[in-house]
């Protein structure tokens, strides 16, 4: 099939690459500014493992092409715009309403909020099979390609039989591992999308709150969460305490859902979760501050991990930023390592002489007064402890993701501070 994808960020490129890989002829229409950029300069592509390669491959075989805003004979249009580009979406659809008078399928994957798909539909003539279908964007940064081509669940938000049939056939290649294929109205699907995101945030917020309490009550949060997870009503997903969640989509969605509550005059649990999460991001700094009795003068601090989670180079809303800001404000020398996010971090902290970007994790810990583990990259889980002991000025490890074993570390001679234990 011929598909045109609209958008410039990760979601759009993942959709375009995956649809092309499945055999479709795909055009991706981005803004003029992006069109001129070489692919490797687009950070959304660079930061996502495997994506750039897949795009280049699909372009070589000719199934994926970049284009500007020009007319084309396509019947299937895939909107993957940013949440604040609703007007842009309306404009695209008004154009298509004229250009494709019947049998026009538009897949809306944008997080415009509840009721947005209905608003877009109102521009079109449903009787002539001009239909907008909502498919929620379940993109997980770091696992985006796999998430698109082998999802466990897909929701199709539409009431129109023709459109549902068309959509099914378009996404058929991706249904091999499917466990749930849900059909509901676009409005309900939009609401569900936000509701899921909110629920996950609340779980993380709650386990973090428990961890902070556990810190003061001499219990180990790891044991507690194992006990909680064993209860089938709860399960163990999204119950890892840590120093706060980040990422662009997740945070944006929660914030916008919380706004909806507030606009309707309801106090939002999510609002508390968001503000507590911001506090949680400073947790490692606070633990360090307390350890050194409120005095970080002339200290050198190593930071392992800057991306908001492992497997991505993205530092959007990452806890590392708040920690580094706090350290720099105290005049601390910061030495940071991250396997992928260093160049993004370097762009974020330009002209900041007190921060050193280290390509090797052991460069970061040389003469350090503490090591803060902020992102749980796999390579951090089993470091060379002897080397750490030798090279660090003070053998203090503050573990923001609870990846180390306290007893083992203390046996080696480290001072270990985790989250909630």
């Amino acid at each position: 099939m011929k598909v045109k994808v609209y958008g410039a960020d990760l979601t759009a490129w993942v959709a375009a690459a995956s649809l092309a890989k499945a055999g479709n002829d795909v055009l991706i229409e981005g803004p003029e500014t992006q069109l001129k950029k070489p692919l490797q300069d687009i950070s959304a592509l660079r930061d996502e493992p495997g994506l750039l390669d897949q795009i280049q491959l699909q372009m070589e075989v000719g199934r994926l092409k970049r284009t500007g805003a020009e007319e084309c004979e396509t019947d299937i249009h895939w909107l993957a715009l940013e949440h604040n580009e609703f007007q842009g979406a309306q404009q695209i659809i008004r154009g298509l309403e004229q250009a494709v008078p019947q049998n026009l399928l538009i897949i809306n994957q944008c997080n415009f909020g509840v009721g947005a798909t209905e608003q877009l539909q109102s521009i079109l003539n449903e009787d002539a099979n001009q239909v907008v279908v909502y498919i929620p964007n379940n993109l997980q940064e770091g696992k985006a390609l796999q998430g698109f081509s082998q999802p466990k669940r897909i929701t199709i938000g539409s009431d129109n039989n023709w459109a549902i049939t068309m959509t099914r056939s378009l996404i058929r290649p991706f249904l091999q591992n499917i466990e749930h294929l849900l059909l509901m109205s676009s409005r309900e699907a939009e609401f569900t999308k936000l509701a899921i995101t909110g629920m996950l945030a609340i779980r993380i917020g709650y386990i973090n709150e428990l961890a902070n309490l556990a810190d003061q009550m001499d219990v180990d949060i790891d044991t507690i969460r194992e006990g909680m997870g064993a209860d089938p009503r709860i399960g163990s997903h999204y119950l890892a305490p840590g120093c706060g969640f980040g990422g662009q989509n997740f945070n944006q969605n929660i914030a916008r859902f919380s706004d909806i509550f507030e606009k309707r005059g309801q106090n939002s649990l999510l609002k508390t979760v968001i503000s507590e999460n911001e506090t949680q991001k400073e947790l490692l700094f606070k633990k360090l501050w307390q350890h050194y009795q409120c005095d970080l003068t002339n200290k050198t601090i190593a930071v392992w991990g800057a991306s908001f989670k492992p497997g991505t180079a993205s530092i959007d809303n990452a806890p590392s930023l708040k920690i580094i800001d706090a350290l720099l404000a105290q005049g601390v020398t910061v030495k940071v390592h991250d396997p992928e996010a260093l160049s993004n971090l370097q762009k974020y902290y330009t002209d900041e002489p007190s921060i050193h970007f280290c390509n090797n994790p052991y460069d970061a810990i040389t003469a350090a007064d503490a090591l803060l583990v902020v992102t749980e990259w796999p390579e951090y889980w089993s470091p060379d402890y002897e080397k750490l002991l030798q090279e660090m000025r003070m053998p203090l490890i503050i573990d923001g993701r609870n990846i180390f074993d306290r007893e083992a570390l203390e046996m080696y001679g480290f001072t270990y501070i985790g989250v909630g234990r």
Partner: protein
Amino acid sequence: MTIDQSPAWLALKRHADEVRDTHLKDMFAEDAHRFEKFSFSAAHCLADFAKQRITNDTLQQLIKLAEQQELPQKIEALFTGELVNTSENRPALHTALRQPKETPLILQGVDISEEIHSSLEQMEALVEQIHNGQWRGYDGSPIKTVVNIGVGGSDLGPLMTCRALNLFTTDEIRDIELHFVSSMDGSQLARLLNQIDPASTLFIVSSKSFSTIDTLANSNTAREWLVNASGLPVELISQHHFIGVTASPAKASEWGIPEKNQLHFWDWTGGRYSMWSAIGMAIALQTGNANFRRLLAGAHDMDTHFRSAPLTENLPVLLAMVGIWNINFLNIHAHAILPYDGRLQHLPAYLEQLEMESNGKSVTLKGEKLNYATCPILWGELGPNAQHAFYQLLHQGTESVMCDFIAPALRYQEHGDELKAQHQLALANCLAQSRLLALGDSVLEDAVNAPSHKRYRGNQPSTTIMIDELTPESFGALIAMYEHKVYVQSVIWEINPFDQWGVELGKQVATSLLDQLANPSAATTDSSTAGLIRFVQQQRQEDKS
């Protein structure tokens, strides 16, 4: 020759005999252009003296009195740092605090302009650190609550200004919850400490001498609360939860505040003239550094006007001289401050200190007892609320009272019609009250036939001060205008407005009574005080048993 024997004074006395019996309503009836003649504006402020019991002659003669007292030279003396505070042998340079950085001012060989601005910049850096969330409490939390501990000038100015400018803030500013604590009995502090989180609370201890017992008592209580909450040593708490604003760095250091957390001002800044210095840190915390600078700029506009405008159209001078007329020639000894804008709620308390602590004196600069009236009793309240309280006395009591009505012309420009209508309502009331006070029930037709208890005699003089809009600039100008008014009156009365010896002895007596309260058998006071001490003692014993 004392001033009350001077030609200009005697001429005014004679003039007063002519004017005294003319009712304001007749003055208005005779002259339809009083507003044009008697209203003046400068630096965002308009002052209308038309409802004062004055004629063209009055103003001319008052200006002669000011000239006789060499007012222009005295104004220059104030600005150039002469030792206008004679009893303490120092200048009073609050005007220098709001002078632009580029203007040097040499005092005993030192450019104090540079010192002033470096202190301001240090304050701004601390404010920024707090706004950025990078001032950390003992557990590493960013500061969310700031408590200003101070009393008198270290409390009233910042408190008044924070309330007045509460709408002025900039987007970058994190919301800081701001509190003011002053009372020595600890009642404000005790309530507050129950509501706030110790780890994210910072205290600003504002005290010029850093020995004010009220402030230190509150600060010690606050520090003890933090030590108990944190379990950390007192030194650590003093370093991370206190900023000291003072002219006595050694005393602040002794109390435990490290030098880097001290902001300094100088002995040439009187406490009640100090909100333009680092004492105003609370203002900058609430409104942002830029708005604090706007406040200074507004005050500087008024300074420039005061220093350069001819006496005949000089706002602070006219405000002062009309006051002199009322006090010394019409024998009015009560002055009400009546703002018609809720944001100016604390202005009356501020002016009570500014005027009464400055000019509540009865000895001349030469140390002689004077025999004419000086500062009247000054009090006030938000006008609309006072209408339901003491306006009865203004309209129908036996005392003559002069009033200052204060209001912004514009408000709620960016809001809906309902709020605009509320401002109109307040303005209508402001104008109605001053009109009624001046003209009495002559504003009605048929009033003469009303029963006596429904009559309004009128002839109560008032000044209406309007600012264009309440902004940092206009507010700065308004306060500077009153400061200069106070100075002008002191020049006429030949008194020192910059000392306050009358508040000293009470502190000493209190210290000695503190011992006697603890040990009543040693009491050696008058029988009344001794009796009261015994009463307290009895209550304590009954409470124990």
